[in-house]
């Protein structure tokens, strides 16, 4: 058994953006799929709870979840070409949630689709909605996926690395668009990313994941100003800053294999500040004000650098 995700706790309010940060294999995507009950065959939630607008999601049947997914919780994935069906028109794909969840038909449905496409800045939607995905650019496709996500009027959008395949100027446009939509609709966003720049630009709160656990979470400014977990510090130091030639802070090694996690704290083999107990005992979560928390023995022992 692989424990892909362990010790993950976070919450977010309406209109808030949570950044879920981590490297590949840290459990970001598994966490998101657990929320919406889309874990692959063979994977299951063995403990814990997911509460959404007061309802417990982990005990719901797939049938009940289907009424929530696409309507109240929407997901935007990394590769828009994989989320769009190449054989159906844009209209058909954007219309689907409104057709099933809101029972819209005919002219009302067409108007709704055009409205959604306009909301994601697709030019001349009445024409473009007859196109197929391959006729669109990468940035446009990702905006179409955004339109599908918004179609059901969701309260929570989970965006899993939505801009990774986009060019920088197109990425900036997309991030601006998500911000605008959030301001207009008050939707809550979970932004999954490995890019701390996106977190700095988009998020109110951050949860940093390493080897399946949330090792630190805090409001975004607090995390950037006073990171408490050595892994968070390493991540912040590893990113080049524009206009600075200072050597990057590189931690040795690579993220561990989830099938054979190190004992104790999973980060201890790479940690420059590891204590003897880090190798044997799993650190407990230490909470501080403003909903910030860290899972590190240095923090527990009051040894963490400020």
């Amino acid at each position, binding site marked *: 058994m692989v424990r892909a995700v362990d010790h993950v706790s976070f919450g977010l309010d309406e209109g808030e953006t949570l950044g879920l940060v981590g490297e590949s294999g840290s459990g970001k995507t598994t966490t998101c799929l657990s929320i919406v009950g889309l874990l692959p065959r063979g994977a299951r939630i063995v403990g814990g709870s997911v509460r959404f607008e007061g309802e417990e999601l982990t005990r719901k049947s797939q049938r009940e979840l289907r009424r929530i997914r696409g309507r109240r919780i929407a997901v935007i994935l990394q590769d828009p070409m994989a989320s769009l069906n190449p054989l159906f028109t844009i209209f058909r794909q954007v219309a689907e949630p409104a057709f099933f969840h809101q029972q819209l038909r005919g002219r009302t449905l067409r108007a709704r689709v055009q409205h959604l496409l306009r909301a994601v800045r697709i030019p001349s939607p009445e024409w473009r909605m007859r196109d197929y995905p391959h006729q669109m650019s990468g940035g446009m496709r990702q905006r179409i996926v955004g339109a599908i996500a918004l179609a059901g009027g969701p309260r929570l959008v989970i965006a899993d690395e939505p801009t990774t395949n986009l060019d*920088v100027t197109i990425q*900036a446009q997309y991030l601006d668009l998500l911000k605008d939509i959030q301001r207009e609709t008050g939707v809550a966003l979970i932004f999954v990313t490995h890019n701390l720049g996106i977190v700095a630009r988009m998020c109110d709160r951050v949860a940093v994941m390493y080897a399946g656990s949330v090792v630190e979470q805090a409001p975004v400014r607090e995390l950037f100003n006073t990171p408490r977990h050595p892994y968070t510090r390493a991540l912040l130091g590893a990113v080049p*800053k524009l206009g600075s030639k200072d050597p990057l802070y590189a931690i040795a090694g690579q993220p561990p294999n989830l099938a054979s996690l190190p004992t104790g704290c999973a980060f201890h083999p790479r940690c420059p500040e590891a204590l003897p107990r880090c190798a044997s005992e799993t650190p407990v979560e230490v909470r501080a004000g403003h909903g910030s928390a860290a899972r590190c023995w240095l923090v527990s022992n009051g040894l963490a650098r400020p």
Partner: protein
Amino acid sequence: MASPVLELRGLRKHFPVGARLLGGRSAVVKAVDGVDFAIQPGETLGLIGESGCGKTTTSKLILLQEVPTAGTIAFDGRDIATLAGAELMAYRRAVQVVFQDPFSSLSPRMRVGEIIAEPLEIHTRLGAAAIRARVDAVLELVGLAPDVASLFPHEFSGGQRQRIAIARALVTDTRLIVLDEPVSALDVSVRAQIINQLEHLQRSLGVSYLFIGHDLATVAHISHRIAVMYLGKIVETAESEALCARPMHPYTRALFAAALPSHPDDPPAERTIAGEVPSALALPSGCRFHPRCPLAMPVCSEVEPALRLRDGNGAVACHLY
């Protein structure tokens, strides 16, 4: 100043596309359309631009994977189109490449030692023991233990594979390495290791880099000079610090505006440019950037601006200056 290792002059590469079967006109994609730059010994030139701007075609021209439509590439002052035989082999030895994806650039059926030794077997007459010693030496240079030579690529993580690719690029007497997005596929903490390693190798070996990338902060960090490319042309070039301090071309400024902040309190970007890169099949008239340019003037759609010296150093191709 020392003479450049590599110098591109008026380099063009046009690809005809579309069949002429029914008498229709065939179109031409001007992937690289008049590019000039030089790379000095021990220098890193960053080449930055969005997808489709011609970065990769430029690297293919340098690596002799494509033949230029016009213009020259000079290596140590000699046009590489005139090289043949032993001299051509010497060029191929001196100029190496590291690709973005270390999962597809290393043969899964070859052991690491064989992968790194292959250039030596092609280019030198070294004996097995000498090759082995050279492989061990470059593995050590890139921070890997010599005993990994007997393993296969699948036994390594992305960062380690990229080290293997760098070792292969260094094993001949390499003068210039084309680094085509070498860290884009790597995790953040591993990226820093590779960038530091590349910088360290350059300091100790004096090798030159052409660093191709789209992430401004990374390119600016590793490069001494930066050339900004848009639709087959270089629109601005300057020393890295000067470019970061004062980007002049509106496209460069748009790239800076689109760059992500390194702290939540960083001042917000001035504004994001609208629109997308136009198709290379239907290039805009005049300045190629004018349809997206927030500062476009009437002249911009008529006359193509030439590269002119910019303040301090470098050059910029824009009617504003």
